[in-house]
Structure formats: structure tokens, C-alpha cells
């Protein structure tokens, strides 16, 4: 199934004021892969993500999303393929009620009204917030907003999920629940994040960006142990790969890891 593929070749983007955003980025993400895009602030993560749904068009190089090369002509098809979850759910939830918000995409896709209701309820049930359907979005908690934002994207059944900092602003339990939820999704996932522990739990592959260029691309567990690479890219080892300050053991070692609370 070729439509789950994201392929960038020598992708570059320079802002209108001359600031380089990303410089010659190449990668290929295949069907069902879960990829973390990590890097320090200003490394170009968000700029890269904005290319994946065609909000920015590359100044040089090419990007293929599924069956289509990214260009103005097939923006619609690309946006159909890619579901984008924004960092601030308030930007994404603009309709009067949760139900209307989740129904917004499917209705725009031209689904018949009687099907839309089913699709919306299924999306809300997947993220476990169907009880909120009549609530206005501004009355929800941060975790609830995030879940609804994900539902708004799921209801359009995209092939590729792109997320910008999905765990930011969540309390530890909501974060854990979100990670467990994302694990169950079969989509190709591209997740830009500073939460390296989430990257370890969720993504088998990581792309490290630094100053707009790819400095490493490979298995998450290997890359995030590479002290030199992390230091050079302005990052730190994920907490679970660091030694415990109390007992000196590493929490990712199954032999010494304390059992997780349910």
C-alpha cells in the first residue's frame, strides 16, 4: 500500500525573510512506521511538519505523500491522506460543540449525514470521550481537549497521522493514557516532540534534526543512547535511560525496573 508513504528528497525551505527553516532534508517513512522527529528548539521540527500537510511548499527538493508529490494541484488529496494534530488544541477545536467539531471534517469530505453520525461516534469512542459530545470545547480540560483534537482527525480516516508535541501540557496520567492510545493506532505516525521518553515508548525510529538538517536517522533506542550525538543536537538522554539517582539502576532495564502502577 503505497499511500502510507512519506518521502522527502533534499527538502529545503527558506522563510521569506531569508531565515533558513530546513536545509536539504531527506528521509523515507514507510507504511505503519512510527517515527519521532526530535531536536532542540528552533531545529526545524515545526517547519518540517508544516510541509507534511502542504501548508508550506518546499523552496527546493521534493516531498511525496502517499501517491502524490506535494504541489498546489493536489493539496486536497494530500490533506485527505495526512491527519494533523496541532500543538495547541484550542487552534483545532473551533466548532460550537465537540460533536460538531469532529463532524466538521467528514461533512467537508461530503459524507452523507447519516454516516457522519456513526463516524463521529466511532472516533470519539476510540479516544474514549464519547460522553463529551455535547460539551463546548472551551469548557474541557487540557487532556480532554487533546483527545477530542485527535478524534477530529481520526474521523477523516487519514492514512498518516502527524502530531506536533502531543504530550505537551498533559498531566502524567493523561500523558500515559495518550501514549497507550497512540500505540493502538495502525497509522503511519510522524511525531515531533521534546518528550524523548515518549519517543522511546512509541516510536521504533527517530529522526534527529539540528539547525534544519538531519543529523541522525535510525532506531530510537540506539540514537537516544548516543551521548555525543545528543550533546551535539542540544538534547539529553531520555530519563528512563539515565541512572536512577536513588538506586543507581536504569529504569529501562527489565530486571531492575519497578512495576508500573496500573
Amino acid at each position, binding site marked *: 500500500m503505497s499511500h502510507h508513504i512519506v518521502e522527502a528528497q533534499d527538502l529545503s525551505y527558506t522563510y521569506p525573510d531569508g531565515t533558513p527553516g530546513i536545509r536539504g532534508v531527506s528521509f523515507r517513512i514507510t507504511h505503519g512506521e512510527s517515527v519521532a522527529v526530535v531536536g532542540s528548539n528552533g531545529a526545524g521540527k515545526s517547519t518540517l511538519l508544516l510541509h507534511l500537510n502542504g501548508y508550506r511548499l518546499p523552496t527546493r527538493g521534493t516531498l511525496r505523500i502517499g501517491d502524490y508529490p506535494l504541489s498546489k494541484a493536489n493539496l486536497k488529496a494530500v490533506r485527505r491522506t495526512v491527519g494533523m494534530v*496541532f500543538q495547541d488544541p484550542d487552534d483545532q477545536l473551533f466548532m460550537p460543540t465537540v*460533536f460538531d467539531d469532529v463532524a466538521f471534517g467528514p461533512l467537508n469530505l461530503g459524507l452523507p449525514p447519516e454516516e457522519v453520525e456513526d463516524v463521529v461516534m466511532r472516533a470519539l469512542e476510540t479516544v474514549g470521550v464519547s460522553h463529551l459530545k455535547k460539551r463546548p470545547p472551551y469548557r474541557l480540560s487540557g487532556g480532554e481537549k487533546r483527545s477530542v483534537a485527535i478524534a477530529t482527525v481520526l474521523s*477523516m480516516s487519514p492514512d498518516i497521522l502527524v502530531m506536533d508535541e502531543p504530550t505537551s501540557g498533559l498531566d502524567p496520567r493523561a500523558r500515559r493514557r495518550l501514549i497507550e492510545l497512540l500505540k493502538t493506532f495502525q497509522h503511519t505516525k510522524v511525531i515531533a516532540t521534546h518528550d524523548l521518553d515518549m519517543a522511546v515508548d512509541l516510536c521504533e525510529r527517530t529522526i534527529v534534526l539540528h539547525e534544519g538538517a538531519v543529523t541522525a536517522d535510525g532506531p530510537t533506542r540506539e540514537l537516544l543512547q548516543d551521548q555525543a550525538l545528543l550533546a551535539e543536537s542540544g538534547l539529553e538522554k531520555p530519563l528512563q535511560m539515565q541512572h536512577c539517582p536513588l538506586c543507581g539502576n536504569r529504569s529501562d532495564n527489565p530486571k531492575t525496573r519497578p512495576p508500573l502502577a496500573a
Partner: protein
Amino acid sequence: MAKIDKHFFDLGYMDTLASQQTPIHRLDPRAKLITTLVFITMVVSFGKYEISALIPFFIYPVFLCAVGNVPPVYLLKKLILVSPFAVMIGIFNPLLDREILVRLGDMGVSGGWISFASILLRFVLTVGVALILIAVTGFYAVCAALEKLGTPSVFVVQLMFLYRYLFVLVGEASRLVRARSLRAIGNGGSGIKTYGSLVGHLLLRTMDRAQRIYLAMCCRGFDGKIRMLKPLKFGLPEIGFVCGWLGFFIAIRFYNIPALLGGAVTELFK
């Protein structure tokens, strides 16, 4: 700051009121909107010295409040909040128009005072009814009704977004104001210069957010039209509601019921 926050929560209270289940809430929003628009037109169509003929019009808002379970005190507070506008319009009438129109015993009441009272009455009726309409229908349902009745969707979309992001804007503004007041010692940092930059920041942030929201909408296939799954049904109860009230409005518009009643009573005692 406390004030901004307070009005913010007050605004949310309108939504709570609108989510009640009463016979009035269950009516199709178009029925309530049409009736209310006709009501407002009727009220403003009277001559400038009219007072007595306006009194029967209070029956409609009182009916909506009673059946729609809207607390009158809350409504009154909202009216007082916007009353300065109405007062400003009429405040000079008593000075400009000194001709005595009515005599109450020895005291003459000038035309200015009467037209001022008439303006205030109309203000209470029209603004009151508009507030009640939103409290028994909900802002978005009113928007949906506007669209169904043929208002260009650009306006309706604007209105919906205005309401949705009012909450975000107020939140952002109150955070800015709080940040300023926590670092302003004494009088320092509270001048016009600080406020200028504060408002400027708010504008820039708003523009950024508008960009992001538009992007989020485009990602989900926005093409200039907002589609909603809201089956509106204009059935018998709606027809009854609209026809009944319109009939009543026309009757009290063309017959001054209080004057007729007064005439009948004085006739009896003659």
C-alpha cells in the same frame, strides 16, 4: 483583571441557560428569531413620545423569561451593564425639548423627559429580548437560524468565530493583564505606553492564532462553508408560536390597549 474574569464566566452562564430543556428551548430557533425580529421592529416603529402603547409589549419578554426559565436578576444586571449607551442617546432630550406635554397635577412634564423615558423603555424591550433570545436558544443556534433564513454564510461564520474565540481572547487578555499587574510596583508600568504594547501584543497573538486556526480548518477540508448536522424542524408548534405572537404584536401596535382600558374605566365611573 478580576472584572474581566468575572464577565468571562458570566458569558459562559448564557450557554448554561441555553442548554435547559423547556418548551421554549425546544422550539425551532428560526421561530424564535423571526418573532423576536418582528417584535423589535414593532417596538422601534412607535412615535418618539409614545410610552403607554409600549407597556403591553413587556408581555412577550416576561412570557419568554417565565416559560424559558431565565433568571430576571441576571438579565437586569446585563441590561444595566449596557445601559450607558441608551442613556447617552437620550440624556440631552430634557434640555433640548422643554415644551410641556403632560400635566400631572401641578407638575408639568416636558416632551424631552417623555421622549427620554420612551428611549429607555425601548432599550429595555429590544436589548432585553435579544438577550433572552440567546439565553433560550443559544448563540450558535441563532447563527444556524440566520443562515437558514438566507444570511450570507460569510457573516454567519464570522459571528460563530467571534463567539468561539471570545473565550480564548478573554483568557489571553486576562493573562497579559495579570502578568503586568504582578510586576507593576505602585504606579510604575501602568501608563498608556504599557497598555499600548499590551494591546499590540494581543493583536499580534490574535493574528498568529487566526493563521493557525485557518490552517487547522484547511487541513480538514474547509472550503468557505461551514456544514453542521442540525436537523431544524419547523412544525406546528413553531407555526403556532409565530402566528400567535405576530397577531398579538399587530393588535397592540395598532390599538393602544392601556389607553382603551383607561377610557373604558373612566367611562364606567362617569
